[in-house]
């Protein structure tokens, strides 16, 4: 079992605001790790740094054995680091099929073609297959705007999984999804994850989901990892209960990385 992701002294400040401080995390291949913490605890900041969207103020990130240095999301994606988003990042004015078609075409990793149609038979069937697995086929030719939140989340995650990533970061996959959809959604996602044998790191507010799907948990509070360990142990921790699973909330600092 090798480390796939390793951060050392990872910190990020927005002016005086501490968004993340001295985060040292090691994720080994095949792990499914949950990240919990109240709003502004630094979860998304952490993911943004790891995926190269947000340069750290200090610290080192190693992915798959090499430091990511100043690589951006694009280069990291090519190295096998994919992510989904808290707010699904989709092409709203394009059809669902086109969203997948462009993603598939990008995932092939070749120079984009300017004459051959993006909707090749192969890509169409591949897209249909994905829509099948996510059972959102009915939206195939709709614009994304026509899809409910849950379906958008699924599509967002599906797109993240294209291009054979080694590791997948899910940013609050169930936020904004109705409680009855949640579990189907997570089941579908986890099914696909298992089939691909991905390492997953996912941010989650819903402790039920966390209990159910992860083996290990990182608890964030005001930018610091206050606890890192097995699910039950972490969720049982008083500090965690006070700062995270409790009702206490801190002001939004995530404006910063916006």
């Amino acid at each position: 079992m090798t480390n796939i992701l390793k951060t050392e002294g990872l910190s990020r400040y927005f002016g005086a605001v501490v968004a993340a401080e001295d985060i040292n995390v090691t994720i080994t291949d095949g792990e499914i790790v949950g990240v919990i913490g109240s709003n502004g605890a630094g979860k998304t900041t952490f993911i943004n740094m790891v995926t190269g969207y947000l340069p750290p103020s200090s610290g080192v990130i190693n992915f798959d054995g090499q430091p990511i240095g100043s690589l951006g999301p694009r280069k990291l994606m090519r190295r096998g680091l994919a992510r989904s988003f808290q707010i699904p990042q989709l092409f709203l004015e394009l059809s669902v099929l086109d969203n997948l078609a462009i993603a598939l075409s990008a995932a092939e990793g070749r120079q984009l073609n300017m004459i051959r149609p993006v909707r090749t038979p192969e890509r169409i069937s591949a897209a249909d297959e994905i829509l099948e697995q996510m059972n959102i086929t009915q939206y195939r030719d709709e614009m994304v705007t026509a899809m409910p939140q849950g379906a958008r989340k699924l599509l967002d995650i599906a797109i993240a999984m294209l291009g054979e990533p080694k590791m997948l970061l899910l940013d609050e996959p169930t936020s904004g999804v109705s409680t009855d959809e949640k579990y189907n959604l997570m089941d579908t996602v986890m099914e696909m994850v298992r089939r691909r044998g991905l390492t997953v790191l996912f941010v989650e507010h819903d402790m039920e989901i966390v209990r159910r799907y992860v083996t290990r948990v990182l608890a964030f509070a005001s930018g610091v990892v206050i606890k890192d360990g097995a699910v039950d142990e972490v969720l049982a921790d008083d500090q965690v209960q006070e700062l995270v699973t409790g009702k206490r909330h801190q002001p939004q600092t995530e404006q910063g990385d916006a």
Partner: protein
Amino acid sequence: MLTIWAILIDGLIYASWLFLVAAGLTVIYGVMRILNMAHGSLYALGAYASASSIGWYYASGGDQLWIAFALLAGCAIVIGAIAGFIMERGILRLMYGRDEVLMLIVTFALLLILEDLMKLVWGTTPYFAYQPYAALGRFNFGVLSVSGYQIMVVGVSVVVGAILWFWLERTRTGKILRSIIHDREVSEAMGVNVRRMFTMTFVIGAGLGAIAGGFTAPIISVVPGIGVEVIVVAFAVVVTGGLGSITGAAIGALIVGLARAASIHTMPQLELFIIYAVMAAVLIFRPNGLFGQATARKI
């Protein structure tokens, strides 16, 4: 040495004029995210209003300078505000939420319309209201001379700038406006009546454009097309300084003004594109202008 003084003086004078022209543009953009191409037409409108009113006043035997100035400023502001109100309520209102650049085109259409409307109202013969300009005489520094009126314009633009700054930074309305500038959704959520603020902002911005025209009228001869000439220059200033920032507009105006004065005194042949060169140069090093903030999408 002489030239350097000349450059500084002329640069300052031109900069203050630029600021007058650009202020309304940047206020409107800052709050409403509309780059108002019709701003030039509002400027022309103000110029026509003040030129014709002053012309009428002197023609009917008036000779009180202060009345002339009262007329000049008054007519310009009033007509500008009215036009602004009509434009905002009549047309822009129907377009809110549309793409930023589409709004640019909408105001481009307004520009075309206003240009012809003004022609229908005022005809095409030049209006010439030189009396106030002549009345303030000049100050001589050796061979150099500065017209009193130009100095007054400098004063006017300083005052306008100060008022704007106070209004935005020190008043309650200003606070609300800044909240809108910072994040429209949130302030809407916090129950700010954004639409009313928009109307107010646009009317004020339009008024500013008209004032600029009003105070320029006595210097120039007011003819069709003067509006179109100032738009791009004003744009350049505002973009250089950073869209939506009063300070930016002021600094941008100074930079452009001095650069232009310098080129006219030293190498006149560059004058035609010095403004664009400055803008391009600034944008290359500060992609959002000197005081502009980058806005990235939240994820």
